[in-house]
């Protein structure tokens, strides 16, 4: 093609202008496509980060039942603390959904009535978490009475 430039300078200029025009048009097309693609990508991924932030409330709902400082935290809480994958996000959502269908939260000890009702208060749900006591055991004062009860290995029974 280069030989044409030498043959006709006006024709070569026209050819160059056509090329620039085509290039501009292609660039515009690519820009539109990229914009649409990025928009679609954001539209699809935007809700995911929002969901992965949700696990925070999960412990509250999971403990559906644990109340007051004397109760262990629900082990499932630990699982929802690390929502690194879609799977963990799903499990957190699932756990929250489960909690939503659970019975209403129980009365905490702090809210316990001072007058004994006819029926026993609903018991909280327990799940081991290997948590230490709120108050560590202390040595008995030298002048204290004999122990009223004993923690020992179980003898007999099943």
């Amino acid at each position, binding site marked *: 093609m280069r030989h044409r430039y030498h043959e006709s300078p006006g024709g070569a200029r026209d050819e160059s202008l056509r090329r620039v025009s085509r290039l501009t048009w292609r660039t515009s097309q690519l820009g539109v496509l990229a914009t649409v693609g990025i928009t679609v990508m954001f539209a699809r991924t935007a809700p995911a980060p929002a969901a992965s932030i949700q696990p925070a409330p999960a412990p509250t709902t999971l403990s559906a039942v644990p109340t007051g*400082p*004397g*109760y*262990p935290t629900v*082990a499932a809480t630990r699982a929802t603390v690390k929502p690194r994958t879609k799977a963990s996000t799903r499990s957190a959502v*699932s756990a929250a959904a*489960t909690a939503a*269908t659970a019975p209403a939260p129980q*009365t905490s*000890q702090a809210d*316990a*009535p*001072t*007058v*004994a*009702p006819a*029926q*026993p*208060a609903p*018991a*909280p*749900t*327990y*799940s*081991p*978490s*290997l*948590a*230490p*006591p*709120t*108050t*560590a*055991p*202390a*040595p*008995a*004062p*030298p002048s*204290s*009475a*004999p*122990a*009223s*009860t*004993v*923690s*020992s*290995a*179980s*003898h*007999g*029974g*099943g």
Partner: protein
Amino acid sequence: MAGTPYGKHTRDALGTFATVMVTDSAALDIARALLDGELAAIDAACSRFRPDSELTQVCAASGRPVPVSPLLAEALSVALTAAKITGGDVDPTCGRALVSLGYDRDFTLVRPDTSAPRQPPIRSWGGWRGVKLSAAGRQVTVPEGVLLDLGATAKALAADRAVAAIAATAGCGALVNLGGDISVAGPPPEGGWLVGVADGATFDTTTASVESSQVIVVRDGGLATSSVLGRSWRRGRTQLHHIIDPRTGLPARPYWRTVSVAARSCVDANTATTAAIVRGERAVNWLDRLGLPARLVRQDGAVVTVAGWPSAEGTG
């Protein structure tokens, strides 16, 4: 006087003893009733020795899903969580191993039989992973051939549930002791609850008393003691005990003779004591890392305390 309960009652239950104490003597009757109800319920749901218990029905279902009561679902959930957080050291699927060692009936009937074991050891390592509890907790599936034993956690759960119900219903401080698994709730008596800690095997069933090695003050949470001395029996020439190492299907190597742990609940405490017996020497660092106050007694009687357990001996 510090630690003196205002109301106390002891009775036989679950093959051992059950003690309830309340800071308001007027609440003792309701406390007894609530404890009796809880014990009856936990026995009907979780006993391995009752043919009519829910647990027996579930284990006999040949791997089919079985609807369960909320109480058994809770007990199973607690047992499976205990297995998970102890890396499988506290495994509820060790029932078959216990049976193979002769612990196939109420313990009072086990000791007199000293015949040689009739079966080889049955390992249950990781077996808890095969037990499926539905998300809603309404159905459980136990793999065929697996026999569950909730002994490590169900009694502690009963103590936690009973004492919470008593404290909430009666509106006073309460302590429940089920064969050494202790749970307290509500405002403690002035000076706290005085609790003896024992590591010997001598036990007076007529008074539910045992000689204490130490007396401590407990104000909240739970306290449990596990030992290789309490439920021990002989088969042939072999001395056995009830804490199974799931890796071997045999009683855990008796590095510790007794472990006592204080924790946020009795379930936590019992889970930790059982796992500590199985873990042996490694238990000291493990308990320390968890911050669980504990007292561990070696076979030779040497005492190790961790995480703030009162070190004074001979106070009892």
